[in-house]
């Protein structure tokens, strides 16, 4: 055991050139001298899984919304007896989180009584609650879509008078912003409504398997639980269907040609079959193209619908595969049959009727509740957030129109409490009359430039994997299951990596099996995704389901963070892509061009040879 420790959060130095960065985030989101005693005695880990990049100030609403929703469900609604919520802090732009628990046995017992009643209710009525949830959530999406971001006209429209409205566009603008923000917060409230219990059910099954079969491979457990027909795979399925339609309509050549979307659509419109295909394309878009190419929790994670070059690029890949005679469909029946076989055979290996019955009971519960865990993400982080980020851009555009910003994207440099003041500034000036100056144009563009620079400096900093005292053992279940953070992983973080002359070796969790060798492509910013070449090994903070279409290009994937139930692991297994998750520092240690050996049967990655010269990722357009 080394003397190595994680830094005390109060001893982490600011990145040079970022003076004043603290004002970019809500005050309660920062480590604070007033709460020092509480904060420096907790274990905080860098949440690279959800927020691998420095947070744009506006985007912190997502971190905060899940901070509240996850926590409240654990601590105040379902009262999961030994657990409390997860606190957040931002350091040099990066999110650190700390899981809280209950130690006092009396308190645990008190919570147990609440938990039994409430969790019991949800498990008992699960199917009907899930059906209700979907209706509710579609309502939230509908409401968000319907919120109009008014422009401020020279003269209010006549309807204001003829309908006796009594309120102006200015007022409606202010109200619209509040509505959008509350809508986002509400979306996250619903996100966690059923999630904690669904993960708990998974853990209950997982734990039983580990008790009964101490050496069982966590991959196998995840395979037993995985649904075959999961919403997150629909977008990819739609691309597949469109690819098949293209072949059928003999549009293969046109659709594999590398032209800009507008040009492609124009060409398609010229023929009847082209028009037919376009119609199918339009239908597929809503909602299946509302798929973020990242986690959805940052505005920079472009969705397919925002940049049609992305799905069209995937489409080209699929058409080419079909032309080569490859099968592009996920073999759902085969996946389900294999899953059922694993379940039956492991169950049969249990030595008693009692154990077999308990296995069956726990398995039945997880099969019932896990679809929520697999499906919620599409509704919230993909579909809803795609609309949300674009709605905020409308406010951004308005502020551009009033000279506050040069680019509508600049709005994201400000946290959500700063925007209302700007809107009030605009509205008050507008209300007084034409030519009346708002203060914003004199103040904000400079501030945008300053913050842009700070963000750039944040990106150069490598956040330590954790802060604060190392816990004796990691026991909070979600920390282990979802983030893949175990006591062993924490120890590994404390061990300094090998020097450049040794063959560095990284260890992680084997998420999907296979042993391959190939050149690495390190991608930490989603914009560089298109630099990926055929046959490379992807090295990244975390992969998400929207990366699935590129899986056919790469040989393997290696990630910094992730547990067995992480999305990277789930998709890797479904697509038979050798994947090692949770290595901790792959994106730091490995450079693009390094020759890697990946043993995803055991979770070992070795750098066999270093790239001869540093290769800068070419910032090519999506092609």
């Amino acid at each position, binding site marked *: 055991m080394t003397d190595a420790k994680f830094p005390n959060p109060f001893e982490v130095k600011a990145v040079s050139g970022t003076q004043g960065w603290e004002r970019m985030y809500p005050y309660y989101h920062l480590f604070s001298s007033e709460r020092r005693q509480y904060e420096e005695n907790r274990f905080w880990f860098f949440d690279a899984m959800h927020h691998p990049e420095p947070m744009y100030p506006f985007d912190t609403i997502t971190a905060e919304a899940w901070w509240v929703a996850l926590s409240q469900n654990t601590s105040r609604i379902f009262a999961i007896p030994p657990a409390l919520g997860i606190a957040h802090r931002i350091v040099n732009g990066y999110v650190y989180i700390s899981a809280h628990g209950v130690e006092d046995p009396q308190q645990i017992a008190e919570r147990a009584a609440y938990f039994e009643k409430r969790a019991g209710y949800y*498990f008992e009525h699960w199917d009907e609650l899930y059906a209700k949830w979907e209706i509710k959530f579609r309502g939230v999406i509908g409401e968000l879509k319907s919120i109009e971001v008014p422009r401020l006209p020279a003269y209010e429209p006549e309807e204001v008078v003829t309908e006796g409205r009594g309120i102006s566009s200015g007022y409606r603008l202010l109200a619209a912003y509040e509505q959008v923000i509350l809508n986002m917060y509400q979306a996250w409230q619903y996100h966690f409504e059923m999630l904690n219990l669904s993960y708990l059910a998974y853990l209950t099954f997982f734990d039983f398997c580990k008790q009964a079969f101490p050496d*069982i491979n966590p991959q196998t457990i995840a395979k037993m639980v995985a649904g075959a027909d999961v919403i997150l795979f629909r977008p990819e399925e739609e691309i597949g269907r469109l690819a098949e339609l293209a072949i059928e309509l003999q549009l293969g050549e046109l659709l594999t040609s590398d032209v800009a979307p507008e040009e492609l659509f124009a060409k398609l419109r010229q023929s009847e079959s082209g028009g037919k295909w376009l119609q199918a394309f339009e239908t597929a878009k809503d909602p299946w193209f509302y798929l973020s190419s990242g986690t959805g929790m940052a505005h920079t994670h472009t969705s397919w619908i925002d940049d049609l070059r992305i799905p069209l690029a995937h489409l080209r890949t699929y058409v080419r595969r079909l032309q080569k005679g490859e099968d592009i469909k996920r073999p759902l029946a085969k996946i389900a049959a294999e899953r059922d076989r694993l379940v039956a055979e492991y169950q049969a290996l249990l030595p008693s009727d009692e154990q077999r019955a308990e296995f069956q009971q726990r398995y039945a519960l997880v099969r019932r509740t896990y679809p929520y865990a697999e499906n919620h993400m599409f509704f919230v982080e993909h579909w809803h957030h795609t609309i949300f980020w674009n709605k905020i851009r409308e406010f951004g555009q308005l502020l551009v129109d009033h000279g506050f910003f040069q680019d509508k994207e600049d709005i994201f440099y400000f946290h959500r409490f700063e925007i209302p003041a700007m809107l009030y500034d605009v509205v008050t000036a507008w209300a007084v009359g034409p030519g009346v100056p708002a203060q914003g144009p004199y103040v904000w563009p400079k501030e945008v430039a300053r913050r842009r620079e700070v963000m750039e400096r944040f990106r150069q900093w490598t956040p330590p994997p954790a802060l604060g005292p190392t816990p004796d053992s990691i026991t909070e279940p979600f920390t282990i299951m979802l983030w893949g953070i175990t006591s062993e992983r924490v120890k590994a973080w404390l061990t300094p990596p090998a020097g450049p002359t040794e063959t560095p070796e990284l260890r992680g969790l084997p998420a999907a*099996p296979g042993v391959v060798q190939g050149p690495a492509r390190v991608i930490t910013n989603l914009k560089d995704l298109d630099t990926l070449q055929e046959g490379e090994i992807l090295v990244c903070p975390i992969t998400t389901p929207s990366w699935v279409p590129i899986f056919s290009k790469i040989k393997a994937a290696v990630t910094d963070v992730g547990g067995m139930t992480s999305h990277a692991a789930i998709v890797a297994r479904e697509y038979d892509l050798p994947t090692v998750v949770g290595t901790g520092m792959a994106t730091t240690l490995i450079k693009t061009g390094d020759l890697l050996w990946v043993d995803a049967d055991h979770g070992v990655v070795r750098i066999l040879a270093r790239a001869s010269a540093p290769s800068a990722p070419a910032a090519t357009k999506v092609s």
Partner: protein
Amino acid sequence: MSEHDHLTVWLETAEAESLPRIGGKGQSLARLLQAGLRVPAGFAITTRLYEQSLLTGGGEVELAALFKTLLDHGSAAPEPVRLAAAALQQRAKTTAISASGLQSIALHYRELSARRRQVDPPVAVRSSAACEDKSSASFAGQFETCLWVRGEAQLVDAVRSCWASLFSPRALAYRLAATRKDPHLGYAMGIVVQEMVDAGAAGVAFTLNPKSGDRSKVVIEGNWGLGSSVVSGEVTPDHFMVDKVTLGIEARRVAHKALQDVVDEAANTVLRIAAPTAQAAAPCLGDDELLELTRVATRIERLYGCPQDVEWALDRAAALPHSLYILQSRPETRWSQRPTVPPATTPTMGYLGAMVASLSGRKVKG
């Protein structure tokens, strides 16, 4: 039906409940062979011949006296016990074996010879004691095994050696411990004579992980040459772990196997030799072999309905799957006797798991 049936019996036709007649090993091998597993062909010499040869003419009295001494004084009186034991060992080595006994043995051995089309085929002659209580620890490794025995005379000598091993100090110590649990324990020796596998590699396989008790794994250990080097514990073998359900090879530890047991055909004996350097470092089993062994071991486990400790050997002269022989299988004793499921992985999970499971069990409809 052979007229000598009460003295010798082919494994392929031995009856199911034959333990008192041919001992535990014989019964097990007969069962495996008759279930279709690849067990070397052979026959068992029954306890009847042992009784006929050793317990007549004063032998029974000597034996009773030995047991009494043992029980009364145990290890506190080594000298009287040693003397009594030595006398019985001498008896085993010299007593007359009936003509019908010798004929029976010869007949079966010649039949093996005919089947193999080989003069004086090499056989393994192994003790198969009829005193192993099913639930307690077996007498594994306490009795004599003679390997690479050729010729009728040598075969008879080997039989006598096996009988004599009943009275070795180690065997008697085990006998004492076992009798304390079960005072009426019998003590007789059957013998199994089987075609000898010229093993290129051999070892053991457990149908659970002996380290953790995990019943979904098969743990395989092996060395080049005969299995005796592994079973004796004197060589660190290669170690593998295969999952029964996924057939994933999940552990692979290649040991430096400095020694191996090989047959010296000229001298008709088994030698322990230094392994050639390249071989010492090479894994003795490839993936195909590991998977076949996993499948066979799992089949044996299903046959017996409980975890097994299996001895296997790969015949140098054959190819997979025909090369894989099962030399023995007995119930695993350490984990199989554990009555309960071990506690949850953490107290938190135990607590939560039980709660959640009971909630679902109690209330979930349909």
